[in-house]
């Protein structure tokens, strides 16, 4: 674990793997420090921003965190119904050396976890993608990915909460309410949640 200062009121905690990111995030969330304003996990880091004077308590809490040991948290499981009708399904199958049906079985059979959110409100980067589906982005990004698209890129899979440009490979679509700012919990997926995709035919 390495701490990198980020201005007056924030620190970037750098670790080596998504599992360690989750361990640090979960431990800091459980510590429930009153001055923490933002707790932002990402690929290999956790950003912690506090009110002025709050960093001391963060450092103290981090001293007790073992990044190899994931805190036992009660994480919610979210099921997302998916129609596997994406325009890149055949490309993903071809790249993986599989049939499209086998891609559907692999993607819907795996268990995922929200590693972090970013890019757009409610856009969750899910880890747990089976090896054959870990594929590069498209050579040329689409100018508009339809809302609800289910996609893969690199070690992640995700569902698009709003129509945006994007270079991920699209394998399906969902009607799940991914983000609604009027809900008490606006984002369907938040860091630490477990996720499964369920085939809709």
């Amino acid at each position, binding site marked *: 674990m390495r701490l*990198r*200062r*980020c*201005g*007056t*009121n*924030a620190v*970037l905690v750098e670790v080596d793997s998504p599992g360690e990111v989750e361990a640090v995030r979960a431990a800091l969330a459980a510590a429930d420090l009153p001055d923490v*304003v*933002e*707790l*932002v*996990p*990402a*690929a*290999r*880091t*956790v*950003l912690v*921003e506090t009110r002025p004077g709050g960093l001391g308590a963060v450092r103290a809490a981090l001293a007790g965190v073992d990044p190899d040991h994931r805190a036992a948290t009660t994480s919610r499981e979210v099921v997302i119904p998916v129609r596997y009708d994406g325009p890149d399904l055949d490309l993903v199958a071809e790249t993986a050396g599989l049939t499209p049906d086998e891609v559907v079985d692999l993607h819907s059979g795996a268990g995922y976890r929200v590693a*972090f*959110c*970013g*890019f*757009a*409100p*409610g*856009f*969750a*980067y899910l880890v747990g993608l089976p090896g054959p589906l870990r594929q590069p982005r498209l050579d040329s990004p689409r100018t508009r990915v339809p809302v609800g698209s289910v996609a893969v890129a690199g070690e992640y899979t995700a569902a698009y909460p*709003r129509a945006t440009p994007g270079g991920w490979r699209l394998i399906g679509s969902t009607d799940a309410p991914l*983000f609604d*700012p*009027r809900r008490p919990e*606006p*984002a369907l997926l*938040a*860091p630490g949640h477990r996720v499964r995709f369920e085939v809709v035919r």
Partner: protein
Amino acid sequence: MTRAVTVLATGPQVLVQDLGRPGNAHLGVPPSGALDPPSLALANRLVGNPGGAAGLEVLLGGLVLRAETSCSVAVTGPATPALVNGVPRDSPLHLAPGDVLALGTPVGGLRCYVALSGGVDVPAELGSRSADLLSGLGPPPLAPGDVLPLGTPTGVPVGVDVLVPVRVPDVLVVPVLLGPRDDWFTDPAGQLRAGRWTVSDRGNRVGVRLTGTALEREPGRVGRELPSEGLVTGAVQVPADGAPVVFLADHPTTGGYPVIGVVPPGALPLLGQAPPGTPLVFAPGTPA
């Protein structure tokens, strides 16, 4: 009758802003809020509102409002002509129903703030009424014909003799605290100290883009990318071309370019006011 004002005209951009919605970055939601929070807070105080009430952030003037109700108004930020029914007035001022307030072009800065007694009472999203143009939260930019509901006044307007307007200096000196990725750059403090930049015309509420000295990476870091990591407001991100971007309130919550340093919160309001072409130098330091 409900308290309201009607928008008759806008300049380049008028947005509803309060102090934003911090605490949602883990959901991918930027903090947003006024780019010059002290000016918004001052305007609110002048009309008797709590500091966090929603007001209007007016880019380069041009706003024309008609009062549908009796209300107090304050205009803060850079010096901006304010006319009521065509007559120049100082802030705070009072509007009777039917009065028309028109704002001219600000001098010495980009954005003035208009507070109305009772505050702009549009629905809050994630605890804030701020327009967030990056993620599409909050009300869209105002347009002629929009009717803005006002809340019930809770305080008494403050009388003042003179308001000191915000003025961006001829050369903007911006403090920057090194890190978290200053080690990606050759002599980061030296490069920041020696460099000379100007504020580009491609800036917006997401960030101020700078043109000028290209910041050079350590040879071993050239052509590499960082895995995405969280960004704070004020982060000075350096894309591969070396031209820095200082992130403002509507910044993306994560990014993959290295952040050489962070501008402390107190220095950001003037950056949000700096017109394109403003010369800028950095004063690098190390976090305490």
